[in-house]
Every structure is written in structure tokens, then in C-alpha cells.
């Protein structure tokens, strides 16, 4: 089992979700984060005072998958989120040791999907 963390552009959320759904990946957790990356932040000015920002709004997806869904998931995210420009985002893959579904008590692979 793998735990995928993907950082994408906010505009791409709906497309990424749609693409994942097509690949039978329906479950995920979404949150708003701020990215500090190669894409530079935008300077803000308040009453003449400049504040150079380093952070830009991004969306973070967390998706736990069984191993056979890892590649489809990565492909789906890449397909939907990639524009080829700086700022598109990244995917991180971590190993997942255990997964428990609270409502049923199922564990492991069956609990993920």
C-alpha cells in the first residue's frame, strides 16, 4: 500500500479528480496549502510597504492506494495536472503500513478502496 501526496495547481483540482475517477480511484483527502517553489511568489504592497511573497496557493491531495493502483494514480494526476510550466506541482510517494476503515473495522488492502 502506498500513500500518495500530490501538490497541484488549484485550477486543476476538478480535472485531476475527474481523471482519477476514470481510473477507479474515488477516495482521497484534499486540503489547501501554500507552496514555496520555483514559481516565484508575488510581491504585495500595503501603503507603500513592499512584502515579497514566497508562497502561492496550491492544493494538496492525499491518496492511499493499493500497490496496483499506484501507477494509474500517478498517470492520472500527471495527465490532468501537467501543463509543462513551472508550478505544475509534484507527486510524493510514501510507503503505507496499515490502513483501517473506521466504520467497519476492515484493515489493509480492503480498507483502502
Amino acid at each position, binding site marked *: 500500500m502506498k500513500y500518495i501526496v500530490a501538490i497541484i495547481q488549484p*485550477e486543476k483540482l*476538478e480535472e485531476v479528480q475527474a481523471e482519477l475517477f476514470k481510473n477507479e480511484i474515488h477516495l482521497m483527502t484534499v486540503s489547501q496549502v501554500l507552496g514555496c517553489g520555483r514559481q516565484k511568489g508575488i510581491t504585495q504592497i500595503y501603503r507603500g510597504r513592499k512584502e515579497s511573497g514566497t*508562497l502561492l496557493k496550491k492544493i494538496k491531495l492525499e491518496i492511499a492506494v493499493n500497490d496496483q493502483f499506484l501507477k494509474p494514480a500517478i498517470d492520472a494526476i500527471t495527465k490532468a495536472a501537467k501543463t509543462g510550466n513551472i508550478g505544475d506541482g509534484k507527486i510524493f510517494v510514501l510507503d503505507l503500513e496499515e490502513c483501517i476503515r473506521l466504520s467497519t473495522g476492515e484493515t489493509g488492502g480492503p480498507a483502502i478502496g
Partner: protein
Amino acid sequence: MLGRVLTIILGAAFFLLAGLGTPALAADASTVNSGDTSFVLMSAALVLLMTVALAFFYGGLVRRKNVLSIMMQCLFAMGLISIQWVLFGYSLSFGPDKGGIIGGLEWVGLRGVGQAPNPDYAATIPHTAFMIFQCMFAMITPARIIGAFAERMKFSAFCIFLILWATLVYDPVCHWVWGVGGFIRKMGALDFAGGTVVHINAGIAALVAAVMLGKRTGYPERAMPPHNLPFTLLGAGCLWFGWFGFNAGSALAANGIAVSAFVATNTAAAAAALMWAGIEWVHGGKPTMLGMATGAVAGLVAITPAAGFVGPVSAILIGLSVSMICYFFVAFVKVKFGYDDSLDAFGVHGIGGLWGALVTGLLATKLINPAGADGLFFGNARQFGIQIAGCAITIGYSLVMTFVILKAVDLLVGIRASASDEMVGLDLTQHNESGYTLLD
């Protein structure tokens, strides 16, 4: 740099001071009625608040990244039009008539507009009180258009558009309908508080702008839910509040007509709000807060031209009907034709204003306002024809001129923000600031 600007401005100012700054002597107090003056000044203050309210009504509906751009445009309209009006807008609109088409430049810089009443417009209040009350109308009219091009117009383009539209569209139409000698006024068209001048005029401009700017990126596929509906209610609530100044204040005196307009305004807003909620309940499943707020505004728009000419029962009728019509435009016609009137400036203001102007020709009655006229349902079919003519002329003129102005501005600086600016949001890209902090 700053020094140079300072010098130029001070120089210009003193020139103006010498040239224009001889204000009229204090009024002969005997003709000024303190109750009426109090009423019109407070009404003017209420109408000013409406532009702020509009900033929240619209601002709550856009995405978080564009909230300041809306507010900035409203604020800029408050600033620019206030100055334009004092310098020459008022003179063009209400100054001595030139062939029924435009006011003359005699009142430029408010020369000759003093504390004494001008009985042509309002006999019991200082002329300047009438002037500043009208200033607030001139300010909010172009602000209404903002809803059509929200989230994608370049700010520089907006500024140029604003001054041109105010001068070339608002001022002439205002003169035609309300100026002494204006040709639509002479036709006998009724427009109590601005259905034609304000709502149709701005609504048509909104449609033209929406079409010319094109859709927002991602519209209509991508969800763009309102980022802060309480702000939208705040706006709607303050609009309702301010609209009493707009409509009742248009009586220009604290008299029975003012009260009548006040009652009609409240009643129509209420009826329209209920109706919108009712339609949603029947049609969409659930009545929504945004729906009621939208309905209330539609009702306020529609009652505007009729306010001083109709009784409360007619006001209910106007309120009920306008919500049906506007809902139809917003939920069906817009979808069908696919233009992106982002915040429904055309669908609510344009259509609501048009319906209001027409219905005035049906329901107006001299029983309420002897200085008005009877409408079709009170036996005077001619009035309905006049109203149609007035609307048609305004629509045609606003349509053509808005098109021409936007084309010109587009050639000059480009009207549409770049795709990447639109993606990042206009607040950061046009104004280098953001509405809310993210990590605080």
C-alpha cells in the same frame, strides 16, 4: 517626481480657483425648506452607501482571489465620477439644454450652481443639494456594469472605460430623460428614479461588455461558487436600505409622493424576494439565501422607474413579475446563449430595469401622483407606447456606444487581463494586494 506632480497640480488648481471658484452667494433662505433639504441630503448619503453596498453584493459573489478587484472598481467609480460630475458631468446632464440632446457647459465646475434653489429641478432645496443627489446616481450607474466583466478585466482598461462611458453614455441619456429640454422627457416618458437612465443603460452596457470580453477561463465547466455569501447579504441589505434614498429621495421633498415611493420600494423588494425564493422552491428544490437577495435587488430595480407613480398593490405585482422574468434570464437565457454575465448585471439590472420601465407604462396612476401620468391599465395606452420608445432609444444608444467605447479601449490598452493574471487572480496581479491572509 512627486515634486513635479505637486507643482503641476497646485498650478492647475489655482488656475481653476481663479477661473471657476466664484461660488454663488448664500441662498435666500426663505425659499429653502429645511425638512426637504434634510431629506434630500440624507437620501444622497444613502445612495452613496449603495455603491459601497454594491461592492459587497458583487464582492461576495466572486472568487476569493478577485474580491478586491471588484471593490476597487466600485471605489474608483466613487472617486472618479464624483470629480467628473462636479467638473463637467453635471453641466452636461442638467445644464442649459442644447437641442434636447445635451446640457451646455455653462455650469462647468459648478459655476452658477449655488445654494439658491433651481425651481426647474427642485424648488425647495438648494440647487447644490439637487446636484449632489444626482452625483450619487451618476456614480452608482457605471458601478453596476462591473458585475458583467468581473474577474477578468484589466484595471487600466476599466478606468478609461469608466470615464468615457460616464461622459458619453450616462450624461447624455440622463439629459434626455431628466434634463429640462431633454427629448425623451419632452416625449412624456416616466422614469421616477432611474429605470431607463440607470438600470437599462447600465444593464445593456453590461451585456455588451460580457460578450466583448468573453467568458472567464473555465466558465461554465468549472465550479465558481461565491466565496462569501454573508458579504452578498450585507450588500443586498444595504442596497435595500439605501434604495429608500434612491427612490423616495427622488421626490426631492419629504412629502406624500416620497412616502408613496418609499412604500412601493419596500413592497416591491419584498414581493420579488419572496417570489424568487418561491420559484426556487418549486423549480430547484430549495429556496436559497442568494436567491432571495437576488430577488430583492431585482424588485428594487424594477420598482425604480415606477416608485412614485404606483400604489402598493401594483408594487406587489411588479415585484412578483420581475422575479419571474429575471430568474428566467439568469437561469435559462444566459445558459442558452452562453455569454458570461458573471454576476448577472444584465440579467438582473438590465432586464429588471426594462421590465420596470415598461410596467410603469401599464400601472402608473395620477391617483398616486398628480404630476405623473396614467398608464395603460388606467386608461392611457399612449403612455405605454412612450415608455417603449424611451426604452428602445436608451437600449440602442447604450448598446452602440458601449461597443464603440470598449473597442476603442481594447485598441488602446487591451481590455482583458492576461490568462495568467486571471489564473492568479486580479487582486494580486492588478493591485498587488490580497483580500485575506492565508497563514494568520
